[in-house]
């Protein structure tokens, strides 16, 4: 999880998804996850994954990095698929594709939406303590990641983490985590003091960059509805599953075209940069 990179992408991206409201993208991600939940068709799930890869390209962010972040659950999905092995590669593929598609949908949401916008969108359905906890956790995360980085560097420089001395390494590293905990708690007390000085009254409001619903919101929701509609139709009417291959071909074509659009800098790439 490269939280710093995710935060940077969310705040500095300029794609159509970055211009959409957080709620529209949450609906989009929700619809994709719902289609992943109801679908057991290998080809359809592959088509959904290719469609999400295409959208990832459209975000104009480093696609490989996004795909790598979203591929993390595949490790555990592979273990689960191996444990549930029934002799069919397709069923194992379904489990892995479900993990990859749902994860990529969430990562697309989070790399195109600053976290205060996401949290303020889900605030109405969560208790206040949870929303505040989410805000403060996210904020503390960056501080702790930096402290961890410094800690590991410090341990390495002073010989606290050396090759071959594994027990000593574990002891030093654990003490380091203890140090992070103590410093983190001091930090939390400072947080509280600063929040009080600034008039903290038990509520932290979100960013809300995009107040009006526009074409970008419409596009995000339509893509989600199309993906969910296809999954629902095939789920309800098994005979339509013969069109799985068509959907796969269309999504693959869209992926290849989008990829070509990005990787040909001397032709369409100019238009992309504009």
């Amino acid at each position, binding site marked *: *999880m490269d939280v710093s990179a995710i935060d940077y992408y969310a705040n500095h991206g300029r794609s159509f998804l970055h211009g959409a409201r957080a709620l529209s993208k949450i609906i989009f991600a929700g619809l994709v*996850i719902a289609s*992943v*939940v109801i679908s*057991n*068709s*290998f080809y359809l799930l592959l088509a959904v994954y290719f469609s999400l890869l295409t959208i990832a390209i459209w975000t104009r962010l480093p696609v490989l990095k996004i795909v790598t*972040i979203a591929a*993390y*659950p595949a*490790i*555990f*999905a592979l*273990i*689960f698929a191996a*444990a*549930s*092995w*029934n002799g069919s590669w*397709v*069923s194992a593929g*379904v*489990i892995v594709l*479900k*993990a990859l598609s*749902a*994860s990529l949908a*969430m*990562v697309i*949401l*989070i790399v195109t939406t600053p976290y205060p916008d*996401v949290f303020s969108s889900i605030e109405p359905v969560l*208790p206040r*303590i*949870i929303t*505040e*906890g*989410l*805000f*403060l*956790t*996210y*904020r503390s*995360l960056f501080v*702790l*990641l930096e402290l961890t980085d410094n800690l590991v560097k410090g341990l390495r420089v002073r010989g606290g983490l050396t090759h071959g001395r594994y027990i000593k390494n*574990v*002891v030093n590293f*654990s003490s380091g*985590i*203890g*140090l*992070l*905990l103590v410093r*983190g*708690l001091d*930090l*939390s*007390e400072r947080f509280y003091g600063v929040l009080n000085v600034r008039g903290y009254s*038990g509520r932290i409001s979100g960013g809300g960059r995009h107040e009006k619903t526009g074409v970008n919101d419409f596009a995000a929701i339509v893509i989600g509805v199309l993906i969910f509609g296809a999954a629902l139709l095939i789920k309800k009417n098994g005979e339509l599953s013969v069109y799985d291959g068509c959907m796969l071909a269309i999504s693959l074509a869209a992926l290849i075209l989008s990829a070509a659009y990005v990787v040909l800098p001397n032709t369409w790439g100019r238009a992309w940069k504009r």
Partner: protein
Amino acid sequence: MSHMHIPDGVLPVWIVTAGWVVTALLLAFCIKRVSSIELKRKVPLIGIISALMIVGMTLEIVPIAYHINLTVVAGIVLGPALAFISVFIVDLLISMFGHGGVTVVGLNTIIIGAEAVLGYYLFQLFKEVMGNKSMFWESSLAAFLSLFLSTSIMLGVIYISPEKIGSIGHLVSGTGSDTNGQRLLEDGINFSRFAKTVFILSPLGWILESVITGLVVKYVYRVRPDLILPERA
């Protein structure tokens, strides 16, 4: 591997929904319980501990697909109610980064929350039985037992929903024959293999996490004993 990295759509909808309902009820109970202990003051504390757990989860031990959770540390420092709230926040946040399914956040909160709550109570028990010395063995044993129990809960959740796991294979295999379906739905095959995989891979992670938990608690007890034993504050 005490929490579920199971993808969205693999477990049946009813069990996922039940997970959310139970989590909502437990959260309501925890929030009501901590409302009297300066909730506003505790929110930053929850934030820091939750962030620490997420940092722990980024440290992946790839060969055994294990990462430390620090849930027992959270349970010992925050207490059971706040630790459960903290676990929910962690699960919700990491699901946004694609770490674990979104639909299984409810179930994950129950499993990891149980780990934190059990860790707290087991630590209190061992502390009474073994006495206050370095706190290493008390917290290590509490962590090991909590991890074993929470992993068992996780396997229990999967055990009561094997037909869904089988049905994926049945549906995508395209045979649709009763014989093949019957073979796939002999749930003992999938579940026992999964349980074996988990119990082969996990103990190494449990030991490592127990040692780390013990050392972290030992360090914190040496530096800030009031965090481990609030009565000393």
